């Protein structure tokens, strides 16, 4: 089981004639059992990509293959794809249990069997007490988990998740990350997962695809993308913090990850004024002029302090100032 997208192109015609290239020639592959994470700025075409794979959005050009079969013209209902929508899409007239089980019922499973499976999935996602509620009686995070449960109950050929954990708290999220992976591994299906949470992307993804403006900028294992971002855009998008990109010198942009920047009271390096200090647990984020640094809490300077920022030469990334491509 695998899913392949080839040369996908999709243009929206917005009101007043404006055109939006939501997908501008996207090639991607998720192998059997692989979890492909998609990250990218807001509006870069991530949701559109999932909708195209699911068959909800016709392509202008390109094709979609599932299990090596061209499904470009196949309607959504016959692709056997599970999709968790970004905005939950629960059925307002059905209770939570019915919402979770509706897919199974649609495929003709007997009520009794569906009920026990629903209960099982609900336990995993910590929503068992909600089974008798109506969707309007749920909080934001609860809604998302119900939507997730609806996708997890089945054994589809492809699994697509559009930010299913956006409104879920850290602890639960950590747990659910594990559950999702476990389910997927046991099914052995490819999964495409859109998220804004970089830690999640790095932690879960077998590979990660970074999108911007309808294109895939880089697609590789997370460590590689983190270590060697292909473009400045990737460098800014991927990672727990966006990479610092210094003004171009001789057509070369130098980038340094905030995690690699050291802030000293004195010594050699770029001198600057501390503009802001934001605590973040053990570390804090320090903005020195245009450079962001993550430093241990103990070393935190005060706003307004004069400091020097440095980094090791091997921590530098170099990009072409014009094209943004890695050098």
């Amino acid at each position, binding site marked *: 089981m695998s899913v392949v997208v080839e040369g996908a192109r999709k243009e929206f015609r917005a009101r007043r004639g404006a055109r939006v290239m939501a997908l501008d020639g996207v090639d991607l592959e998720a192998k059997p059992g692989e979890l492909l994470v998609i990250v990218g700025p807001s509006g870069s075409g991530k949701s559109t990509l999932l909708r195209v794979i*699911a*068959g*909800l959005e016709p392509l202008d050009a390109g094709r979609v293959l599932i299990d090596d079969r061209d499904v470009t013209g196949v*309607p*959504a*209902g*016959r*692709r*056997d*794809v*599970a*999709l968790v*929508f970004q*905005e939950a*899409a629960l*059925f*307002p*007239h*059905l*209770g939570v*249990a*019915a919402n*979770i*089980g*509706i*897919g199974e*019922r*649609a*495929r003709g499973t007997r*009520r009794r069997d*569906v*009920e026990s499976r*629903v209960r099982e999935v609900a336990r995993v996602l910590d929503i068992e007490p909600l089974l*008798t509620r*109506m969707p309007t009686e749920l909080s934001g995070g609860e809604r998302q988990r119900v939507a997730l449960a*609806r996708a997890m109950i*089945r054994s589809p050929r492809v699994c697509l998740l559009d930010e299913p954990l956006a409104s879920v708290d850290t602890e639960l999220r950590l747990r659910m990350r594990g559950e999702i992976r476990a389910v997927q591994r046991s099914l052995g299906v490819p999964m495409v997962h859109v998220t804004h949470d970089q830690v999640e992307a790095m932690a879960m993804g077998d590979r990660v695809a970074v999108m911007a403006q309808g294109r895939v900028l880089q697609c590789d294992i997370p460590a590689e993308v983190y270590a060697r971002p292909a473009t400045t855009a990737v460098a800014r998008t991927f990672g727990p913090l966006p990479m610092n990109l210094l003004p171009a010198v001789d057509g070369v942009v130098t980038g340094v990850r905030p995690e690699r920047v050291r802030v000293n009271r004195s010594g050699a390096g770029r001198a600057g004024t501390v503009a802001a200090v934001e605590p973040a647990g053990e570390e804090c984020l320090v903005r020195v002029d245009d450079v962001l640094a993550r430093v241990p809490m103990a070393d935190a300077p005060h706003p307004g302090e004069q400091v020097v920022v440095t980094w090791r030469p091997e921590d530098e990334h170099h990009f072409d100032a014009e094209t943004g491509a890695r050098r």
Partner: protein
Amino acid sequence: MRRWPLAAPYLAGSALLVLVPLGLAAALAFTDYFGFRAPEFTGADNLTRLAADGTFWDAVGISAFVAAVVVPLRLLLAVGAALLLARRRGARTAVGRAAAYLPSVIPDAAWALLWLWILNPLYGPLPALLGVLGVPDPGFLTTPWGARLGLVLVMTFQVGEAFVVALAARLAIPARLHEAIEVEGGSPWFAMTRVTLPLMAPIVLVLAVRDMVVVVQNAFVPTLLVTDGGPANATLTAPLLIYRRAFEYGELGYASTLSVTLLVLTGIAAALPLWLAARLAAHQRART
């Protein structure tokens, strides 16, 4: 959040034009009133008379029968057309939508007389068509059951209102929900029975109640003009009877008694589908 003042014009208008007149009508129900002199209070006399009024109860029976046949047919037609004609652009859809609405545009009086012609046993296009098709002519205007069938036909096709309302309800369902069902691999039938129709249910319900009221209480024009209650009172429906009682025989007081009785009866009859639907919805919500 306090938006009840928005209902003020409606409540004022309703009080003046419906509620107070209804109160008057209810008061008249206990009087002898002929419209010329002040009403005369007669206590429960009208009720005694009502209990023994076989003609009225026969008429109620006919109305109930017509409603039992016509209301489901109308709903089926209106909702069916709305489902068929939803979310598809193009000339055929436009023509279809116009076609479903058109019969309702024809004024009642013209509509009734038109059917009088269409159903004509000797010269009517419909019996002629049935003859060509080899279907036996039920005797639309000549036999009791034929006349009732004719009445059903006359009342069934003017579903433009219900159609428009059902269509609006259908189109108001967010596309996301159908997408979700599609992705889940649900058949169109499943999508219709488990998503589309349940979501349209409240409006269909209001339509049902209203259709019932219209058929049982207000639609006397077809009976008046097409069959005039005949043959041999086979289509003497409750509203036609009340109409005659009030205006041909001039007994406005007793007619009020009948009207109010009919109001109560339809109220009870309407409560039934409302109750059923509530049960059904609860059942659907709960089950997986």
